[in-house]
């Protein structure tokens, strides 16, 4: 099991899953949030409130047309200042989100498991046994000037991530002397078992701080049984892949992120 890093650049961690909802079969892909779907979200909100997620925000106005897989409710802890996790639900969609201070993957999985357990019990009766069509685990990281050791995004991508992309003269001919191209890279990398890794890196801003944003996610393309065990299995596989890739990618600046004493 990998150790949690000090000074980790994590901005946000998102576990999201989707399933086919009755809404998805409607004409024009949209439905009015009907009573049963609203009831499932209310049931979920009440269930996670028992775990301290007492604050429920409606994200779309009452009576508004809600698209399938659009988040309608967000559940947070009452004390927003100390919020490090939240849940979101909507027709055919659920997410658990985490932000620093991120303790460890193990701690986050407890939150996800708690939410999943309540979700699977709360889903509308006509969807309760529906398999999960998509699962995504996503990490958004920001490397500030200190972690990037002052490198430009181009230098960071080349020297740290070891991605070498060069522009042909046909494009650089328009650039003034001394100007440096600023890359924004995205890759979709097939993995075994019907899983895809998405990788993106470029300049960005997180919480008002400029830096180099790295966006990594692993998503399933095959249905997963609607059980906490099966879903957590997929998320764990995704975490292991992202964690291994991340650690290998940041090796040149690993000295800036020593292991925390407490293992994850």
């Amino acid at each position, binding site marked *: 099991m990998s150790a949690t890093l000090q000074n980790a650049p994590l901005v946000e961690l998102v576990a999201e899953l989707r399933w086919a909802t009755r809404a998805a079969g409607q004409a024009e892909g949209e439905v009015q949030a009907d009573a049963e779907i609203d009831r499932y979200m209310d049931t979920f909100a009440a269930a996670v409130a028992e775990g301290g997620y007492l604050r429920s925000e409606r994200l779309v106005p009452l009576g508004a047309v809600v698209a399938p897989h659009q988040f309608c409710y967000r559940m947070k802890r009452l004390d927003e200042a100390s919020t490090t996790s939240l849940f979101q639900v909507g027709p055919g969609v659920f997410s658990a989100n985490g932000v620093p201070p991120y303790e460890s993957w193990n701690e986050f999985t407890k939150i996800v498991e708690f939410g999943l357990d309540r979700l699977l019990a709360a889903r509308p009766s006509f969807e309760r046994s529906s398999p999960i069509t*998509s699962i995504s685990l996503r990490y958004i990281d920001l490397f500030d000037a200190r972690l990037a050791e002052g490198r430009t995004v181009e230098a960071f991508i080349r020297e740290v991530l070891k991605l070498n992309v060069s522009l042909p003269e046909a494009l650089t001919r328009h650039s003034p002397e001394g100007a440096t*191209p600023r890359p*924004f890279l*995205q890759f979709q990398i097939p993995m075994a078992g019907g899983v895809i890794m998405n990788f993106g890196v470029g300049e960005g801003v997180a919480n008002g701080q400029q830096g180099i944003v790295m966006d990594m996610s692993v998503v399933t393309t095959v249905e997963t049984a609607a059980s906490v065990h099966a879903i957590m299995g997929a998320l764990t596989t995704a975490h292991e892949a992202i964690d291994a890739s991340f650690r290998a990618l940041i090796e040149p600046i690993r000295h800036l992120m020593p292991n925390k004493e407490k293992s994850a």
Partner: protein
Amino acid sequence: MNGIHSVQFSMGNSQLAGQQMSTFNAGQSQLRAAPRVMADTTLSGAHFYANPSASSASPLDAPSYQSERARTRSILDRYTKEWKSRVLDKSTEVSANSLTTTLRSVMGALMELGPGAIDLTGLPQSRVNGHHLAIVLRATLRRQETTPGWSHALEVARFALSYDGFDETTVLSGLMGR
């Protein structure tokens, strides 16, 4: 390199970045606005393209994900058609070669597409070939918790074998009582 990729460059002119984004084809393109979640994260390159908040963007909305999912679906359908047509045919030969053919389809699906590739829900008992379903159940035995409908399919196999005059306790040996 194995994998779809997209590479964009800006020459220090943000407007240029936005124009180049129109050729963007592989990543986190966001077609619908969604509220920010927790962090307020923006990718400069993506900023001009679509959604200004990377945090609210889901990779599950990306066109590249949808196309990959469609590709996976077609592979899955091919495997499913292969093993299901044999399981749902009482006249499918029960021999080592024939059972191996069924097993090969199931294992192929599991190897290529993972544990969710075999869905055993909704098998019509009246059409099930118990011997071939038993092979599928054996192949997924260690993955039964991640195989939809596994427990019910075991019951279906038991009834089908019994109805067809076979000793289900022998054919399903090692599977019953799990």
